[in-house]
Structures are given as C-alpha cells and as structure tokens.
C-alpha cells in the first residue's frame, strides 16, 4: 500500500475516484448540480471565513468538542485493553449526523437553495437535517422507509415537531435504500431550488468526500484528546459501518498513522451464514448503486439484495466507496457482529457506564469488548459512540416483551 513508502494518503482523484471505487453514476439531469456542488466545495474548503464559521457552528450549536471518555467499568468488564469512547452521542440531536448537516446546510445557503431533502434510516440523519432546516428557515422533506417509520417512531415525531415533512416510502424493502431512491427522484425533479443532504459517505462525487471532511472533526478531536490524555495515539479504532460516515469521520485523520489499527464493524444481522444481514464489505461484491461504484449486497444477476439489521441505520446494502478502497488497500479491516451481540453490548454499556448507546453504535461496542479482552491492559482501544439510544428504547423493550 502507498503508505509504506510514506506518501501521504490522498483521495479521491478529481473525478471522485477512490481507487476503483466512487465516481458519479447518476442520471444526466443531476450532473449540473453535482458540478456546481463540487466547484463550490472546492472554493469554500479553502476559505478561512467559511471554515471559521463552520467551527463556530460546531462549537456553539452542536456543542463540540465532544469528550473522549475513559470507560473504566466497561474496561473492567472486558478485562483487557483500556477502552475510550468518543462521545458523539452528546452532540446536539444525539448523534454524529449533525456534523455533516450543519456543513451541508451552509453550502446549500451559499448556493441559494431554499429547500433541503434527506433520506434517513434510523431517523438520526433526518432529525439532524430537520434541525438545521429549522435553524436556517428552509423547507425540509425527509424520505424514510415505512418499515423504519414503524421502528423509529420517536424520531419520526421529532422531525415533525421540527417542522419537517416525513415522506413514507413503501417501495422495495421499505428501508434506507428505498428512501434514498425516492430522495434521488425528488432531487431530479426539484434540483433548481433543492439541495440533497446525503447523510453518509455514499452517493455520487463529491458527496463521499465532503461528508467525510465534515465528519473528520470526530477523528481530529479524538486524535488530539488521546495524545493529551495518554501521551500517545490509540492502538485500535473501532466504529460501526452502515454507509460509513461516523467510521470514516473517526478513521480518516489517522490514515497516515501506521501504528493505529482500524476496524469497521458491519451489521451481521442474524448471522452472515443466514443471508439475513447488512454486511456488504464482508459478503458483497463491487457494483453500482446510488451514484457510486462500491461493495454491494446483490444477487448473481445484479439485483440489489434485501438486507436485515436490528438497527435501521445500518440496514443498507451498500457502503461508502472510500471504505471499499480501504478494504482493498488493507488500511482498515472490516468485521461484523450479530443483532444479538449488539443488543448484549447495548445492555452492558447501560449497566457499566450509565450510557445508552444507539443500536448502531452498539455494534462497535460489541466488537470492541471482544477485541479488548484479547489485548493487554496497556493497549488503547478507541470506540466511536456515534449516537445515543433513546430512539431504540421501543425496539429493545419490544424484544423484552414490554410495552412502553
């Protein structure tokens, strides 16, 4: 891999390629909007005024920096390496998603767009989009699969309270991928006045790059915080991967730190052998969906497969193209945990630390617990706690047979 000869990592290329992955596979109608967004982003990402305004928003509105918390009782429970949690759950709206929506909303304003649209799975990205829309006085419509609407009802109501319209999508698997199809259809229709805030490091160029850059504040802070607390970098980074934005946000600032191992945890659902999972990097093949070339779960004739995960935010058949690139490069390793393991970790973190993680983030916690147990006490494992779990109380209660 290129890093061994000390060439700093740089991706994507000008045409949005991460190695073989990424690119811009969309209907012609959208090319103009993507060109406009690419040009604008190229100018503002070097504009000190824009960057200062963004930093101010992240501080005053989002509540950054988020703490890097040493989880002593969790560490004790695992019985091995020291575990730190990057507390993205403490952001305004309760997840990392707002880092990106704040940035993209500023871009939308600069382009003079008056309407925001978004897709959402768990509802966290929808809430984060509805939130910035309310703050800027922009119209907002959020597409959400009808199955996800049923399992994330709290976030649905929250978006409505924020003044957004939640549009149910009953096509296909009625989950995140179908919401994204519908958002693309809206965008192609209303491209003149609408900005589409894609919520992950997915989609056509420049989205995987700009969402990564907006989320990289997670890793940049965590890197400084770890150096301050421990005087050295962590040995291992762990994050859950659906589309992969919280993971890439944590990982990217460490890309050239060769001593830092990086692990992305996909949704193993009911187990990879059952076929009911959402782990394209594990069990998928490269293909094209939603604007980019990346690993996908698809059948032998190229139809996108149905996925399954207990967590709506990970229930997606694709993954950001930069993760696909890192898998092939070997810069990150991708693994998976099952629904049951994630649920167990959800309970452990509640009871050892008084922290309720999102079911998405619980996947990262589950794998970190397993791995920390295998490592010596002097090792440092840094886990991205990407969101809080209040939205999942109904799901967990249902599994416990309790009606809340």
């Amino acid at each position, binding site marked *: 891999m290129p890093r061994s000869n000390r060439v700093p990592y740089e991706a994507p290329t000008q*045409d949005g390629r991460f190695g073989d992955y990424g*690119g*811009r*596979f*969309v*209907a*012609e*109608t*959208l*090319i*103009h*909007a993507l060109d406009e967004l690419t040009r604008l982003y190229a100018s503002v990402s070097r504009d000190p005024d824009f960057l200062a305004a963004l930093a101010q928003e992240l501080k005053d509105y989002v509540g950054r920096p988020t703490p890097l918390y040493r989880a002593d009782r969790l560490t004790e429970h695992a019985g091995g390496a020291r575990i730190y949690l990057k507390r993205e759950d403490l952001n305004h709206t309760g997840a990392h998603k707002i880092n990106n929506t704040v940035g993209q909303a500023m871009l939308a304003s600069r382009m003079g767009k008056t309407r925001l649209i978004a897709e959402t799975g768990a509802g966290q990205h929808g809430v984060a989009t509805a939130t910035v829309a309310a703050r800027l006085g922009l119209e907002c419509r959020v597409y959400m699969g009808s199955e996800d609407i049923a399992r994330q009802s709290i976030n649905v109501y929250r978006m409505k309270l924020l003044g957004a319209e939640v549009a149910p999508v009953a*096509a*296909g698997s009625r989950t995140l*991928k*179908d919401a*994204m*199809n519908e958002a*693309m*259809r809206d965008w*192609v*229709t*209303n*491209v*003149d006045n609408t900005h589409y805030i894609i919520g992950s490091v997915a989609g056509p160029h420049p989205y995987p790059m700009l969402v990564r850059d907006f989320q990289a504040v997670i890793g940049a802070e965590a890197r400084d915080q770890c150096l301050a607390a421990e005087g050295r970098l962590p040995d291992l980074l762990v994050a859950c991967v659906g589309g992969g934005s919280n993971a890439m946000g944590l990982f990217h600032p460490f890309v050239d730190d060769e001593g830092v191992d990086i692990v992305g945890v996909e949704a193993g659902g009911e187990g990879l052998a059952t076929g009911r999972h959402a782990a394209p990097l594990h069990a998928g*093949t490269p*293909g*094209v*969906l*939603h*604007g980019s070339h990346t690993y*996908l779960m*698809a059948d*032998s*004739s*190229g*139809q*996108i497969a149905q996925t399954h995960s207990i967590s709506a935010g990970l229930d997606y058949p694709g993954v950001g193209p930069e993760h696909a690139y890192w898998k092939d490069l070997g810069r990150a390793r991708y693994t998976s945990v099952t629904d049951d393991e994630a649920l167990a970790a959800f309970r452990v973190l509640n009871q050892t630390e008084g922290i309720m993680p999102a079911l998405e983030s619980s996947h990262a916690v589950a794998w970190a617990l397993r791995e920390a147990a295998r490592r010596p006490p002097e090792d440092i494992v840094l886990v991205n706690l990407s969101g809080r779990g209040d939205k999942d109380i109904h799901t967990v209660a249902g599994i416990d047979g309790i009606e809340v």
Partner: protein
Amino acid sequence: MSRLGQRFETLAADGRKALNTYIVAGDPVPEATVPAMHALVRGGADLIELGVPFSDPEAEGPTIQAGIERALAHDVTLADVLDMMSAFRSDDRDTPVVLMGYLNPFLRMGYEAFCKRAADAGVDGVIVVNLPPEEAGTFRNALCVRGMDLVLLVAPTTTSERAAYIAGQGSGFLYYVSYKGVTGARRADAASVAKRLTDVRAAARGLPVLVGFGIKDGASAANIAPHADGVVVGSALVETMGCTAVAGIPDSLQAQVREIRDALD
C-alpha cells in the same frame, strides 16, 4: 450499416418522425414480452426500447416502477431479457431494439460477456440511465467492437457545451429528456422543448435526437415531434401492460401505438 442507422436513414428519406416505444421486459409476465414487441411493430413503432428490470430504478416514476416490480416478481434477469430478444429477432430482422436499464445488471454480467450475448441476440444498442459519458468509456468500447450503440441522454440542465461533448461520446441517437423529473410525472412542454432542441440538435451534429418523458398519446407526440427527429413513449404503454389481461395486451398495445403513429404522420 447498423439497424438503427438504416432505420433513421429510411425515416429521413420518407420525411417521417421516429416512434420509439418502451416496455419493461417480463412485465406483467415473461411470456407477454415477445408478443407485445411484435404488437408494437404492427402498431407502427420504428424502434423498441426494452426495459431491463432493476430493483432500484431511481429515475422512474410510479408507473414504470410498478412495471419493473411486476417483472421482478417473476425474477426476470438480464439473461432472460436477452433470451426474449433472441426470440423476437427470429421473427423480426428489421426493427431496431435498444435495451434500457441501470448499470448494475450489465456490470454484474460483465461488459464483454454481455456484449457478446447481446450481439448474438440481435440487440442494437443500450441506454443506461445512471451511466454518464465520463463513466462510460469501457462499456462503450465493448459495445462498439460488436457494432452496438451506446445511446446517451441530454437533460434540460445539460449545458450546451456538455451536450456537444455527450453527442460526441454517444451513438445511435441522442435521447433528450424533456423535463426535470422522473418518467411519467407530467406532460412534455412543447415550448420549452422547442427552445432547447434548436441548441441540442446543433450540438448533435447530425445524430438523430429523440425526445422522451411526458409523451403519452397522439396529441402530445404530435406536439413535440416537429422539434425533433422522433419521440419516445414509455409510461403510457407500461400503464396498459399493467391493467390489461395478458391475452389482450397485444391488441391493446397495437391500437394505442397506432393512434400515436397516425398523429405523427
């Protein structure tokens, strides 16, 4: 000369507009497709666009989405579509057929493997909705080697400069999308199409320009056709496929296409 080239030459010589008709392969059942294709030709279609079902058709409106879902309920694959194509070709050597779909099924089969099988089946070209020219080089070359065309699209948001670039990268014909939106969402607006088409036809440098999206019947076809080399009708035909008993589909389609043909001529 290719079947597409020949067809456009004949149409130009006769002073007629091209009528291109779209249906989804396998909709509503696989055995309906070949008889439906022959019915389109009997009704007066000059070209057939055969839709390749895909699970995530992100540029389609509800009507064509429903047609694709009906086909996918029978697990219709790209390989099945090529078999239907061969069956059609055994009785019709002349009507050009272009496959229209989304990239992943083609990618999964492999460009080389697809092109070989498609050429053997008598396919004349492909339109891939989510494959802009920047990403299309490899596929286009593989098609070209086998004498097939890659038909590219131009949209209302495409700049004139880019339209010229697209025309240079594509072949067969240029597909102008009449409005911003998904298939079947509204009617094509003749005034705005006319305004833009002057520009697009200049950029096309002789490549025929067909207008699709929002052309539903004889009246809308006749409105748009004077500004282009032809029109594409899709959602209206797929609607018929969805609400007609399988045995009655050929007659219904033929009558529907005939009405449009008569309005054009």
